[in-house]
């Protein structure tokens, strides 16, 4: 299989996070179903909580939420990355929903993305 499959995703930022992404709340994007070698996040100081076991091997890895976060930080973020990410993961205090479900119920960063998935990032860090 040499055809590259892509996942079409809807990504939404709110709670003030949209300000880091060009003040645009909703983004639609298309990601390869398998992470391209050139784009793999550096596996070096891999935090122990990453559940993916294929992480450090040379096998192809399906596109997961950890990769999505890396992609958003590299390609869409326009301002102050430290307010979005903390190392390889999302900054504590930002809630993530995968198809309207708390990502903590979906395997967090290890969740493998599917075509049509909707991912919402909400900052809780702004004034109440």
């Amino acid at each position, binding site marked *: 299989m040499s055809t590259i499959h892509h996942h079409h995703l809807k990504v939404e930022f709110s709670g003030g996070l949209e300000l880091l992404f060009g003040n645009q709340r909703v983004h639609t994007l298309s990601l390869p179903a398998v992470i391209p070698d050139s784009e793999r996040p550096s596996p070096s100081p891999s935090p122990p909580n990453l559940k993916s076991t294929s992480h450090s091997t040379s096998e192809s890895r399906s596109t997961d939420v950890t990769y999505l976060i890396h992609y958003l930080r590299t390609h869409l973020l326009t301002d102050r990355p430290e307010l979005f990410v903390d190392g390889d993961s999302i*900054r504590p205090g930002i809630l993530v929903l995968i198809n309207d479900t708390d990502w903590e119920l979906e395997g967090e960063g290890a969740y493998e993305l599917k075509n049509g998935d909707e991912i919402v990032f909400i900052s809780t860090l702004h004034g109440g």
Partner: protein
Amino acid sequence: MAPASCALCQNAKAILKRPKTGQQICKECFFFVFETEVHHTITDAKLFKPGDKVAIGASGGKDSTVLAYVMKTLNERYNYGLDLYLLSIDEGITGYRDDSLETVKRNQQQYSLPLKILTYEELYGWTMDAIVSEIGKKNNCTFCGVFRRQALDRGASSLNVDHIVTGHNADDIAETVLMNVMRGDIARLGRCTLICTQGEDSIKRSKPFMYAYEKEIVMYAYFKKLDYFSTECIYSPDAYRGHARTFLKDLEVARPSAIIDIIHSGEAFGVREDVKATQKPQQTCKRCGYMSSNELCKACTLLEGLERGMANSVTPDGDVLPRMSHKVLRRRSQFSSNSFVWASSSWDWSNLVVSTYSRPHLSVFEM
């Protein structure tokens, strides 16, 4: 991962992992447990009695928006018999508070609650924009915090309410416990976990969300599609609170119950009698009559510094002159429920804090 079913109804698909308990629950059960826990917080502490007039401190942000919605819901569901109001403070921050107040005005329509807005300008003669242009962005959060607390009290007093509720959540309280420990502020450490406090003006202040996690408040707003405003204040954030907050959020990732556990620790602290004896008794401000632990309340001390700053810009030798305009004082007195004392002739100027702007312990972390 197979979708888990709700731990409570065993039926619908779980959408949330509760940080407090680790339970996986569905949307309807989440709404129900969230609201019911707040109801229990209210009834266990006997916060209200039928007929009470209650002002909801409303900023347009997530916590107070959810609080207004939940207070209205519970008041109707459990027949609390409360008269609810929205009370907002306009600090005079262009591009921030003016936008968030638009959200409060929409909430007023959506929840059909009467709204009262008080401005720093009418209370103190200064907007935050003017204060920042005078003192810069270093300690402006101190001014804003001191002024807001007093402004809420004065607003409540002019609405003639019995009680103010604010949206402080469990994360806020845990942060404050940590900050008070780290600052050695024993008096506030003792007070900051009280669900309800009462000044000598007889208006109660309470925090119905003090056991509600920020995560759940934000999730509640998200799933209920509540309309709230979430832009950071354009002036520099409170750096000290920021550190406490980052630390707490890191702890929460490692162990979600940390937040409620810190609150529990705060509630369980006992202050020794010999330490209590050294604490200053509450008195009333000589100038505006507001409750205070010094002769001048914090707001009057800060205003004094501001006015003196203006004077200093004219007289570089720093002559201390009473420059607070009587017009402003009169306005402030109208909002005070206490007898207003302006003892200009007997005022002891030696009592003033000279370097108001550089004293970190003047910051208000009080809740």
